[in-house]
């Protein structure tokens, strides 16, 4: 009767401390430039080494510019962090994808893409969206800098087990509805604290029906639902995705791996601390209107009226959000003009997302006055898109076609919103100032973002089909 989480957990407990804390073995540790400098410094100060460089992979993504990489980076804090990572990986012998490598990209895109992240593994990174890798049926979660050092030094973490939560989505998604809409619907249902203390397993026919990119979009935003991690049981879709990836097992080793991976599912009588069910048919294209990912409505809805909120504290909160977002109650969401469209991030920066956006854009033009950008999640995604001619589709329409990185998902690199700008964004957080001070973010799917780019306002993508 164990759940999938229980099985992966049990397979990684090295030892238990007197108070029940587990020493959990970590199979994969992904490292990036922002949260690792003090961890490496700590190793150096205490004369420790990286225990398993062969289980560690480093990349730069948060700080990097996504403009022409043949030019040198501007001096400053960002460059210092990047150079520091480069010194650290050289000193400690950690495998590293440098800025100008085709394999560089957002850490949560390249892990699965390279076959570094595999089913049944424990995977950590000093970044909350590590939950993405749970789509492969791996236990993957974000950690702080002290824990980064702990994993570098010991290849383990001190952990207490999480609670189990099941989110089941049964049925068939209507045309135009994507994994992003499913996840926004889930977050809208359970709220941003709904998953606190839990690992969420996503199941049901609608989840099974998703490709790996869609499952990654869902698990990626588990953290926006407050969960420690997200999980999807591995199946043939997973195994076919993994097959042939550079760091995945091959040949006979692959077959043996699949044999093991097939044991990774929740037993039929597994017990969950909480179960939530959604019908796929009920899900419409969704868009956020506020400054928290749970403030989400169908594109056909209107901006909510604070007066309709049940209690005073919520009324004040809604009003604050509307003020920040520059909205008035009753405005139609599908008429809101946008200044910027951002397609990318570890939520929606995969080749499938590029294709979905390109299908809408093909033969159309970016609306006048709109800045529209596509930022592939990795150099490999970019190359693949260019092989398929997607770059031309975007460029011909007036989009920017940029280099891989976190880009406008967060205001930590040169791609930022200006105060007051309204952005249709495929990323994961619409917090105040997340995409730049004063910026206004509406989260939505890549197809919906593309539709907004060509019409100049938020748009129901179903009118394009």
């Amino acid at each position, binding site marked *: 009767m164990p759940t999938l989480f229980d099985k992966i957990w049990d397979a990684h407990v090295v030892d238990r401390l007197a108070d029940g804390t587990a020493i959990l*073995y970590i199979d994969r540790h992904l490292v990036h430039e922002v949260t690792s400098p003090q961890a490496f410094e700590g190793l150096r100060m205490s004369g420790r080494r990286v225990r398993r460089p062969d289980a560690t992979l480093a990349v730069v993504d948060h700080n990097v510019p996504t403009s022409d990489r043949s030019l040198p980076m501007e001096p400053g804090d960002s460059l210092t962090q990047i150079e520091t990572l480069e010194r650290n990986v050289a000193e400690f012998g950690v495998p590293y994808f440098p800025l100008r490598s085709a394999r560089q990209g957002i850490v949560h895109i390249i892990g699965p893409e390279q076959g570094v992240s595999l089913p049944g593994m424990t995977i950590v990174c000093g970044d909350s969206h590590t939950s993405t890798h749970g789509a492969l049926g791996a236990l993957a979660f974000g950690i702080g800098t002290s824990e980064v050092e702990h994993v570098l030094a010991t290849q383990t973490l001190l952990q207490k087990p999480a609670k189990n939560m099941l989110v089941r989505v049964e049925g068939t998604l209507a045309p135009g509805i994507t994994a992003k809409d499913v996840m926004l619907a889930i977050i809208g249902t359970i709220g941003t604290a709904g998953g606190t203390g839990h690992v969420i397993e996503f199941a049901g026919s609608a989840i099974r029906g998703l490709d790996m990119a869609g499952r990654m979009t869902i698990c990626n935003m588990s953290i926006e639902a407050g969960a420690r991690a997200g999980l999807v049981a591995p199946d043939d879709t997973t195994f076919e995705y993994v097959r042939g990836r550079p760091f995945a097992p091959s040949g006979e080793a692959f077959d043996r791996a699949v044999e093991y991976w097939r044991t990774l599912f929740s037993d039929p009588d597994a017990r969950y601390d909480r179960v939530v069910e959604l019908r796929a048919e009920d899900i419409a294209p969704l868009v956020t209107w506020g400054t928290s990912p749970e403030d989400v409505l169908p594109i056909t809805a209107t901006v909510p009226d604070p007066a309709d909120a049940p209690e005073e504290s919520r009324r004040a909160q809604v009003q604050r959000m509307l003020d920040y977002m520059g909205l008035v109650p009753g405005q139609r969401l599908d008429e809101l003009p946008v200044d910027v469209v951002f397609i990318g991030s570890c939520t929606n920066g995969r080749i499938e997302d590029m294709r979905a956006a390109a299908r809408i854009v093909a033969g159309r033009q970016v609306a006048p006055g709109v800045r529209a950008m596509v930022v592939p999640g990795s150099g490999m995604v970019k190359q693949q898109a260019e092989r398929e001619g997607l770059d031309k589709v975007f460029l011909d329409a007036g989009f920017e076609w940029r280099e891989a990185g976190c880009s406008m998902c967060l205001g930590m690199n040169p791609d930022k919103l200006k105060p007051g700008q309204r952005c249709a964004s495929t990323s994961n957080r619409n917090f105040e100032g997340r995409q730049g001070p004063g910026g206004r973010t509406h989260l939505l799917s890549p197809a919906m973002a593309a539709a907004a780019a060509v019409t100049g306002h938020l748009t129901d993508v179903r009118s394009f089909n």
Partner: protein
Amino acid sequence: MDAFTSLTGIAAPLPEANIDTDKIIPARFLKTIKRSGLGVNAFDAMRYNEDGTEKPDFVLNREPYRRAQILVTYENFGCGSSREHAPWALLDFGIRCVIAPSFADIFHNNCFKNGILPVQLPREVCERLMEDARLGANGRLTVDLERQVVVRPDGQEIPFEVDALRRRLLLEGLDDIGQTLQHGEAIERFEQGRVAERPWMPAISLA
């Protein structure tokens, strides 16, 4: 992490309550890539003028307190954010022990993780120790973790309480990592078992 057994040193008097983590290390210094090197900005706003010159009155700018290893202060020391930069800054300055009537939770935890001993003693005791600290080099305190006493310059011993597990970790100089490494054999056994059970588990190598 350095072990903490017994420490005899100069104690700096900081007779203020509610010294928060922003005072200990302001947010703008968190962009650093280091844990070390923060000592120069410890208590930045209390310590420096706007033009960067030292405020001559601030205790840590005066001799012999520039070499202080112990801080005597008042209630709720370290309140505010969870930033580990706060104990990092103290440690980098040279502080290994803080004596106060009470501490903020997270800061208290973070101290142990970084080899700093927070000693909690009643206000009136702290006031007496404050007087000792004001004697400068003539008022050295000894903080003996093994015997769990603070020894005043006149030889009087003041006992203090400390969590048994944390005491052990500090005495042995073990941080979380050190503690986990004590299970090194179990980790190795686990790794060997994994090679046997899951031989397909690939290594990451760019060679």
